[in-house]
């Protein structure tokens, strides 16, 4: 148990960090005591990573101060941070794949013997450190040959080798298997025992409850409180994390539900890299005239699930039925033509050919059909007609109309263009992934109303979103995905953000 009255080793005072159009950190205060594990909890985009990047010198805040033992310090870059004993394990490891573990730890801090690196001394020191902190590693193995868990231990040793005593972990469990997570929890406790102070970013409640001493909750860039972990519980935390704001209700007619349009049966997908089941024996179905919301924290298999349904990935096992037909092994085009519209998660990578004119993007799902082509010859006049009709109907604004380079459109208008194209395809099933990410309020309202119109026309819609408000507002049914499995099926009227948030963090699953 740490001393409550102890002076903090690091305090962040009134930190404000503004990105164009968004206040990522708004007057945040945070203090870290010596020998403490301090968790930072919040939804995606709440500002956790930004705050830690400020501490590590990756971002310069607009205002606010960082103090170490009460005196103000200036951290302009990670080298400064290192000098003040601050180390960070990033979500995506910063390791050289083809170097050995030893060389990765030394890199940037090599012990020199004249012009040569003295690996012998370093190796002894590192082995001693790994014993002291019970971090089992193979110093001579190459990074590309070792497990993700060991790579993480290498990152931790990198910090220890540099004698850092303030350790930041950015979502360290996101890439680990359950066993590796157990192992990490032990390591964190060991580090704490040896007197290190730890900042631990997570949105998984059970981990926070298991390992942290205190927890600071961020919501929409603001700190909503710091609590003693012992004195709180998962539902109180999830409550704080998602907020209590009552979502703006929209006029939604009651669902006129028809037959099943999309059925997912016991589908499994293994990550090609880690061989972990990213989608794990998952089943559900969607009927005509309903919007099914798929809620979950990023990286729990929803992106892969969407790609499996669209045909961009092939499942390891299981079946997908579209309008009663088994499409598991059918091409993307077959599914599109049979009746699947897809608003993709990454609109720049998948949704649009940014360097082509807008009208070519608007015809992208139709160009191969009559009358848009005849005997293999494209019918440009029809393409232009379609483009003009769509930008008018869906109010897509651009400098030179349909001849504008798609790249030159604003994010909201790019998304409107995709939605125009997908709605125009008049498919019976619509897959809508991160429908409104990064868009302004006006565009969001418009897109939501378009989706609801689709529902009224009897389309079956799967809405995959990280935004709980969006899910609650639009869905007729809510599924919660956690670690590749559906862990709950809820009705929006009978549930709350807090309850969903709990399921999303695996709260009731554990």
């Amino acid at each position, binding site marked *: 148990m740490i001393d409550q009255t102890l002076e903090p080793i690091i305090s962040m005072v009134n930190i404000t960090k503004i990105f164009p159009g968004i206040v990522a950190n708004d007057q945040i205060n945070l203090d870290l005591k010596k020998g403490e594990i301090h968790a930072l909890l919040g939804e995606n985009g709440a500002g956790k990573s930004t705050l830690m990047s400020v501490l590590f010198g990756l971002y310069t805040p607009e205002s606010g101060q960082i103090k170490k033992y009460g005196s103000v310090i200036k951290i302009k870059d990670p080298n400064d941070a290192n000098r003040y004993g601050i180390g960070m394990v990033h979500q995506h490891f910063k390791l050289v794949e083809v170097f050995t573990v030893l060389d990765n730890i030394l890199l940037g801090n090599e012990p020199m013997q004249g012009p040569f690196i003295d690996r012998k001394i370093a190796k002894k020191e590192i082995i001693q450190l790994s014993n002291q902190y019970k971090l089992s590693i193979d110093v001579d193995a190459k990074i590309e040959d070792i497990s993700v868990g060991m790579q993480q231990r290498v990152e931790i040793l990198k910090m220890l080798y540099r004698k850092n005593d303030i350790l930041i972990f950015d979502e360290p469990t996101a890439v680990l298997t359950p066993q590796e997570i157990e192992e990490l929890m032990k390591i964190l406790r060991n580090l704490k025992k040896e007197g290190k102070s730890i900042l631990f970013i997570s949105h998984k409640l059970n981990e926070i409850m298991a390992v942290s001493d205190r927890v600071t909750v961020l919501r929409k860039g603001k700190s909503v409180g710091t609590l003693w972990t012992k004195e709180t519980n998962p539902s109180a935390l999830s409550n704080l994390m998602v907020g209590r704001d009552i979502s703006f209700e929209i006029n939604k007619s009651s669902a006129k539900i028809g037959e099943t349009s999309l059925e997912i049966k016991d589908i499994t997908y293994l990550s090609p890299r880690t061989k972990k089941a990213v989608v794990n024996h998952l089943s559900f179905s969607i009927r005509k005239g309903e919007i099914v919301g798929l809620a979950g924290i990023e990286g729990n298999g929803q992106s892969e699930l969407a790609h499996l349904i*669209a045909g*961009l990935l092939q499942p390891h096992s299981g079946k997908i039925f579209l309008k009663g037909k088994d499409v598991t092994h059918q*091409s*993307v*085009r077959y599914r*599109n*033509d049979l009746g699947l519209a*897809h608003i*993709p998660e990454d609109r720049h*990578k*998948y*949704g*649009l*050919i*940014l*360097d*082509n004119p807008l009208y*070519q993007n608007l015809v*992208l*799902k139709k*160009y*191969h059909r009559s009358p848009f*082509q005849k005997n*293999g*010859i*494209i019918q440009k006049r029809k393409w232009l007609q379609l483009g003009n009709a769509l930008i008018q109907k869906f109010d897509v604004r651009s400098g030179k109309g349909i001849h504008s380079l798609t790249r030159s459109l604003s994010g909201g208008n790019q998304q409107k263009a995709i939605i125009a194209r997908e709605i125009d395809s008049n498919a019976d099933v619509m897959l809508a992934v991160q429908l409104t990410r990064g868009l302004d309020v006006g565009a969001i309202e418009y897109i939501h109303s378009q989706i609801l119109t689709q529902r009224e026309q009897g389309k079956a819609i799967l809405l995959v979103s990280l935004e709980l408000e969006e899910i609650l507002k639009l869905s007729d049914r809510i599924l919660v995905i956690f670690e590749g499995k559906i862990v709950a099926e809820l009705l929006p009227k009978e549930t709350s953000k807090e309850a969903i948030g709990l399921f999303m963090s695996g709260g009731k699953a554990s």
Partner: protein
Amino acid sequence: MKFQALMSSIIAIILGLFFGLLIMIIANPLTAFPGFITMIGGWLNNESLRRLGDLIFLAGPLILTGLSVGFAFKTGLFNIGATGQYTMGMFAGIFVGIYGDFLGPLQWIFAFIAAMIFGGLWGLIPGILKSYFNVHEVIASIMLNYIAMYTVNVWIQGDESLFNVAFSKTRAIDLNAYIPTTFLRDIFDRSAIDFGIILAIGFSILIYFILYKTKFGFELQAVGSNRFAAKYSGIKENRSVILSMVVAGALSGAAGALYFLGKGSIDSGNQYSVGNELMSAGFDGIAVALLGQSHPFGIVLSAFFISFIQRGGYFMQTLGIKVEIIDVIIAAIIYTSAMAMLVKDTIIKWLKGGKKK
């Protein structure tokens, strides 16, 4: 837009020529200016029609290798293997040109088609490697350039009917295998010109049509611009990559046929000298495609220009200037044209500003 593209190429050419002149002055100030004048057109003073005919003949294969590289560029691939495909096309052309005498007057057509098939197959290999094994087409094509050269050398040297040991060259092909020349030679004073140039220009129109007017071309370009979005929209991207390489290979193969099925200016044809050096034709195609900004019609213009300046270099040798200076100038033009594309807007502004004064 098109005017701007043309202007940026022309500016690149002027800058490149200026750079070449500079090199020539450094090398030998006395011959530099006469040499330069010879290069930029002086060589056409004597026997002008005949020399013009040769220029046109030599532009044909350049158009086709340029189209080969340019077409691949448009579809997101870098076909550095044009030389290997050209070599394969040449072999097939010569083979049918010597063994295919039973084909009668159609012999040259079959030789030409065989060359396209061989070139296409040689493009198919890197296409398959890229699609299914994720091997970068540049690596695979460079290897295949050498494989093509050595394989063809072995094939030719192993066959008495193809190989003239005394000259270490291929034998002359049958008369029916020459691309027809008919009245063109009379117009151009018995030069090397034949109907190959019409074929080459025909191919550039065909490629333009495929790229900009067909569903197939739209798909290929979509894969080239964003393969993820192409896949998302239902295009089979692997198939597109393979087909694109096959088309590119067939064009380079056709270029090989176009040159080696040519009758030549002294009716002796063009023979392949067996050696251990890659033929430069494919690499010239890269220059042609870059200068022509990969547009099928731009490529025709740039092929004529490159042919013009290469012939100039050839005649410059009479003044004791090394023919390699032409390669330096072409390289300089490629560099400046790449830069011209970068600073196009500045140049356009500068041009407009100039007009106002």
